[in-house]
């Protein structure tokens, strides 16, 4: 064990963890909107909208994240027509390609989490609101959404942690995130065990924080 190497690589890896967190937060924010949008489509009675949303979540949950990143980064980069459009300004950057892939992926899972949360709301609660003469809009915002958020917290917390670990795939498209920098240090020191232990420790610490924040929120919004 090369403890000196571990100590030396720690600050570099900590810096790289900031990139990981940036990727994670950008993907989660975009993914939450995408997920909410598709969850509402899934609850719609229109069969086309419903199937379209189902197809999206089926494709993105049914293929590996690595394949999705490669299709967006290397795949779209091969289409010559695309390179002459304004889209290329975004797709040229590995950072944006990774965020698009992560957001679409987490969006698919989030839409399923939110859909099932909405579906667990007992009809009696909505009916109770209606019987009091509350409008449908207010029932949706003041009753259904808060209950759905509470219901989806444990599953969504899991999704955040899975996504955080998923961001390590950004290193495959040249992004210097936590895993990318770890690989870079290994490429000059040839000591993978030491460096990956430190990187793994940082990932574990981030999981610890996310886990506890979610636990706190669960308690705060519990019905009791």
């Amino acid at each position, binding site marked *: 064990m090369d403890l000196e190497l571990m100590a030396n690589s720690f600050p570099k890896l900590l810096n790289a963890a900031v990139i990981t967190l940036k990727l994670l937060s950008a993907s989660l924010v975009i993914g939450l909107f995408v997920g909410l949008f598709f969850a509402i489509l899934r609850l719609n009675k229109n069969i086309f909208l419903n199937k379209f949303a189902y197809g999206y979540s089926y494709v993105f949950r049914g293929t590996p994240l690595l394949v999705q990143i490669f299709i967006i980064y*290397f795949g779209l*980069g*091969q289409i010559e027509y695309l*390179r002459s459009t304004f889209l290329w300004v975004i797709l*040229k950057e*590995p950072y944006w390609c990774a965020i698009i892939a992560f957001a679409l992926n987490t969006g698919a899972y989030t839409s399923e989490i939110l859909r099932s949360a909405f579906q667990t709301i007992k009809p009696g609660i909505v009916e109770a609101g209606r019987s009091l003469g509350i409008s449908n809009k207010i029932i949706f915002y003041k009753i259904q959404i808060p209950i759905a958020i509470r219901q989806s917290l444990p599953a969504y917390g899991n999704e955040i942690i899975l996504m955080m670990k998923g961001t390590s795939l950004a290193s*495959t498209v*040249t992004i210097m995130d936590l895993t990318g920098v770890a*690989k*870079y240090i*290994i*490429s*000059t020191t*040839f*000591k*993978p065990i030491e460096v990956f232990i430190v990187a793994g420790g940082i990932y574990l610490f981030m999981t610890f924080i996310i886990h506890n924040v979610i636990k706190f929120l669960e308690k705060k919004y519990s019905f009791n």
Partner: protein
Amino acid sequence: MNTFKKIIFTVLVSLLLAGSANAGKIKIGTEGAYPPWNSKDASGKLIGFEVELAWTLCRYIGEQCEIVEQDWDGMIPALIMRKFDAIMAGMSITAERQKAISFSQGYADEVASLAVMKGSSLEGMDTPAGINLTKPNAAAKKALKTLTAALAGKTVCVQTATIHQNFLDSGDVGKVNVRTYKTQDEVNLDLASGRCDAALAAAVAFSDYAEKSGKPVVLVGPTFSGGAFGNGVGVGIRKDDTELLNAFNKAIDKARKNGDISRIATKWFGFDASM
């Protein structure tokens, strides 16, 4: 002993025997993704200059060999962790790598070059045909200055953990935006897509790609050798494995004397890259 225990016992014993059956073989690790040094044919079989040379060297050593595949970025760690006994993967002999492993004498050498897509602003740089960085002369220093000016703010793509990455990191051509990839294939893809302004690798890696893909990839600037680019390509071997190191050195001597290295190199590179 009941039947269950017997089954477990038999499986364990056969695993041990299977493991020891391979113990006599020299295992050689290669990447299989860096043509023409080493690559794979359509059926997934390892081919290339080093694959053919490895079989030849094994014949001279007089031992059974097995060639195994390993991703480039884990090559040296895998050797140290005894996944195989020798590296033949277009790996240049550099001082940095010699801190971790030993190298046999070099068996081939070949220059590095920058490549761009046809029509790039980097075409037509006024530099000598080739520069040696071990003791750079005035012309080489001037060429590095020209390159520094031309590459300022440009994105240059390389495969990770290579001499090409080391060279760009060394600051000899100023602060360029270096992007690293797991394989040379991915570097080629992003050079063609326009994400990279230029790429740096073995010159033959680019000409091989241009020929096979039909993409207008052109070499620009001088060819590089010496310095960060090391002193030829050799067999990488664990530091404590001096016996195997000697065996490979002797085998390379014999193969060179008999003209095998030149013959195989000419077959795969189109020119004699042996040394």
